[in-house]
């Protein structure tokens, strides 16, 4: 008698697709996915726990009145709804290609006697489970801690409203996460419907990159945006942002829990504050039903679009009927210019072209760079919000810091991506052809970063800067920016001993510990450099700064050349089994 099969194909496939979300070929092809899950889970929990405690500290022993708390809570609720929505959307964008059945899955699963509908349903379930897991991980602690700390401030709050508030917070923040997640799926699937497979294959990496940049920037800009919601009213850009719609639902459902609490004995000053704040809250209350209506409509639209487009794309009979990759056009003029002016030697050329290919065509590298762009854009927006950008405005530190912040973020991202192997299994080709010319190869990679990352940033920023500070000032700013980027890149690569994009990735735990110091040094350095540029542009003497930059550049290069390096590059630094146990350090 044979044992029955307990798992249906649907359940087995769902489990398999969920495991694939955790696949990680960076450390080694055999790396442990449960370890990755533990790290990601712990990170999500610890970060949200920290944020919840930090955000709710103001409710501990502050003797707030219900009116004051209702107004303050609008900021917190906006923050949590936005955080949940953006984080879920960011996760969906990062998993962009894994949201549907990829060619490898199709090649394995199509020959099996499992219907295409079951495969797609399993994938859809796995995607939904991942989204739900993200939503729960982000919102679990805020849903418990925020209402609980509020209750400590208001003894008149009974257990019923407290539980109601917890439930409302959990449901609405998870709803916001679902909206963010669904919106990304809707965008992806609708584009696939509209553009067809070939067109979608062409735009897909760009759309994914743009979404990561947009979401990443929004995430970084969230703390300064989530302030004084009630005071600023509902007429600015935030009123039309999706988190504000969900805030409308939140307040419609559970706004009265705090705002309408019975007032206990208050001193005259507290009473006056409570009257003012309650009036302000009541004044804003009329907006909430309208915003709630918008949230319902937007959620419904995202859901319907995602499902319809997904089903439309799923109706294709063959999963593997994917378009053949078209040949890349060889830009002969570009190659000639690069080979003649930028990289004249063979090994440097190998580094230059390999870096260009890896940074744009390899998914993990592209996604990491998109995150770096997001950080750069967020910092630039913050700087821009405080700068005078009127035509003919004098150059200021707040304005000129934008450029070093953006290219600096990109170069820091670049420093990170060169540590990630483009395809660990393929590094045997490097090993065999390697001639120990690591400096020449790294030189090519360095020039690729300047050409592909720094020069586009400088070129994009010249026209707006020309509008504000004049053409001459903008050109001087760009030239100094290029010099500054060269020095920064030299500093970032001074201790790099490996072959970029090829060697085993080993996370450097010291870097994590020193991250705040690095971040501070980066911002301060950018500020100082911007200040020097202000002086140079105003005085018309940029040569002095160029000479000043040549000194650290020379010192860094000297140090880089003199320091003791490894005799041989170790492409596979440690066996995967050792890496999983963390025994390599």
């Amino acid at each position: 008698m044979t044992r029955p099969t307990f798992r249906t194909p649907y359940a087995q496939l769902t489990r398999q697709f969920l495991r694939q979300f955790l696949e990680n070929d960076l450390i080694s092809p055999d790396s442990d996915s449960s370890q990755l899950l533990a790290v990601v889970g712990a990170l999500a929990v610890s970060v949200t726990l920290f944020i919840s405690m930090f955000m709710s500290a103001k409710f501990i022993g502050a003797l707030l009145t219900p009116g004051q708390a209702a107004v303050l809570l609008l900021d917190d609720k906006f923050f949590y709804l936005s955080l949940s929505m953006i984080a879920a959307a960011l996760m969906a964008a990062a998993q962009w290609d894994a949201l549907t059945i990829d060619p490898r899955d199709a090649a394995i699963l199509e020959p099996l006697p499992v219907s295409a509908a079951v495969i797609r349903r399993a994938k859809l379930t796995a995607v939904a489970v991942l989204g739900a897991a993200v939503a729960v991980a982000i919102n679990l602690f805020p849903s418990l801690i925020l209402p609980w700390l509020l209750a400590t401030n208001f003894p008149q709050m009974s257990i019923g409203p407290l539980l109601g508030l917890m439930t409302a917070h959990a449901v609405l923040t998870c709803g916001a996460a679902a909206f963010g997640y669904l919106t990304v799926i809707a965008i992806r699937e609708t584009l696939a419907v509209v553009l067809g497979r070939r067109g979608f294959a062409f735009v897909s990496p760009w759309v994914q990159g743009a979404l990561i940049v947009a979401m990443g920037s929004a995430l970084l800009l969230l703390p300064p945006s989530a302030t004084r919601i009630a005071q600023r009213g509902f007429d600015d850009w935030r009123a039309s942002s999706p988190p504000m719609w969900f805030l409308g639902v939140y307040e419609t459902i559970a706004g009265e829990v705090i705002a309408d609490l019975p007032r206990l004995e208050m001193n005259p000053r507290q009473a006056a504050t409570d009257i003012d704040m309650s009036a302000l809250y009541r004044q804003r209350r009329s907006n909430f039903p309208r915003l709630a209506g918008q949230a319902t409509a937007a959620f419904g639209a995202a859901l319907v679009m995602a499902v319809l487009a997904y089903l439309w794309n799923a109706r294709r009979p063959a999963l593997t009927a994917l378009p053949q990759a078209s040949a890349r056009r060889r830009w002969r003029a570009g190659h000639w210019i690069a080979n003649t002016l930028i990289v004249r030697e063979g090994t440097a050329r190998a580094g230059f072209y390999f870096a260009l290919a890896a940074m744009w065509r390899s998914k993990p590298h592209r996604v990491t760079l998109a995150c770096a762009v997001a950080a750069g854009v967020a910092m630039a927006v913050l700087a821009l919000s405080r700068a005078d950008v009127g035509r003919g405005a004098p150059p200021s530190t707040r304005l000129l810091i934008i450029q070093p912040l953006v290219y600096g973020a990109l170069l820091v991202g670049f420093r990170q991506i060169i540590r990630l192997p483009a395809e660990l299994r393929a590094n045997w080709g490097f090993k065999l052809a390697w001639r120990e010319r690591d400096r020449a190869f790294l030189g090519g990679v360095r020039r690729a970063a300047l050409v592909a990352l720094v020069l586009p940033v400088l070129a994009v920023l010249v026209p707006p800067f020309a509008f504000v500070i004049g053409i001459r000032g903008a050109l001087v700013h760009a030239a100094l920016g290029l010099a500054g980027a060269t020095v920064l890149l030299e500093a970032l690569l001074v201790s790099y001993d490996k072959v970029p994009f090829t060697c085993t990735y080993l996370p450097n735990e010291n870097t994590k510990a020193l991250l705040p110091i690095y971040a501070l040094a980066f911002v301060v350095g950018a500020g100082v450099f911007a200040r020097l540029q202000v002086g140079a542009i105003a005085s018309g003497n940029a040569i002095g700064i160029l000479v000043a930059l040549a000194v650290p550049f020379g010192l860094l290069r000297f140090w880089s050349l003199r320091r003791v390096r490894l005799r041989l590059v170790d492409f596979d630094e440690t066996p995967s089994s050792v890496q999983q146990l963390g025994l390599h350090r």
Partner: protein
Amino acid sequence: MAELCAHHLSKYYAGVSVVKDVEFRIRPGEVVGYLGPNGSGKTTTTRMLAGLLEPSSGSVSYDGRNIHDDLMRYRASLGYIPEEPSLYPFLSGREHLQLIGRLRQMPETLLDTKIDAFLGLFGLRLAADQPIASYSKGMRQKIVISAALLHDPAVVLFDEPETGLDVTTTLVLRHMVQLLAQRGKAILYSSHILEVVERVCHRVIVLHKGNVVADDSIERLRALMSHTTLEGVFAELVMREDPEQMARDLVNVSALSTQ
């Protein structure tokens, strides 16, 4: 002329012996067949000969020197065609060959000429600028063979090079191996296809469970073991099961009722 020698090569993984005390030499102009069933240690030996894997004991020498004393110099004269060619999927075939040629510091004009010629001869000109991700196994194998021969190596290690190749290319490969040997290259040809080994190799080494069980010319092995074909010799040396009986057992297992 330089010889490639394996001196008492052994390799252990977690205490399990994969290759035991393997000893042979390959002279310039010689094609040595390396035979053995699955898991016999052929690929491990080949990877040790390529310097990609360090032996647990023993050594590999080329031109009288341990290859690990000057690995770069050795690899400059080495061409290696692995069994499972993993390549960078986002590069095109042309870009991969350019990368390898540039790392090997080949002059650019010569490199371009060779790449165009290889791609043309292997029928890959139309696919040359497509990403390798879209290549079939055979197309990838052609790129790997081109990359291995790009710098005119003195030693060529073929590890089951016929994998995925069509009939014509397999025939081309067979002739190519003979022509390379005529030009003085030392060649190790590891394969499962006994017919090819019989035709192209001057000598065969048979490996079984990590041990060399035969190392001689095909004619002498046939004479010694009283067999007319290499297949017969191979079967007697390494096959412990009756193939017909095993096939019958497999079919029977497949037909087991699920009721």
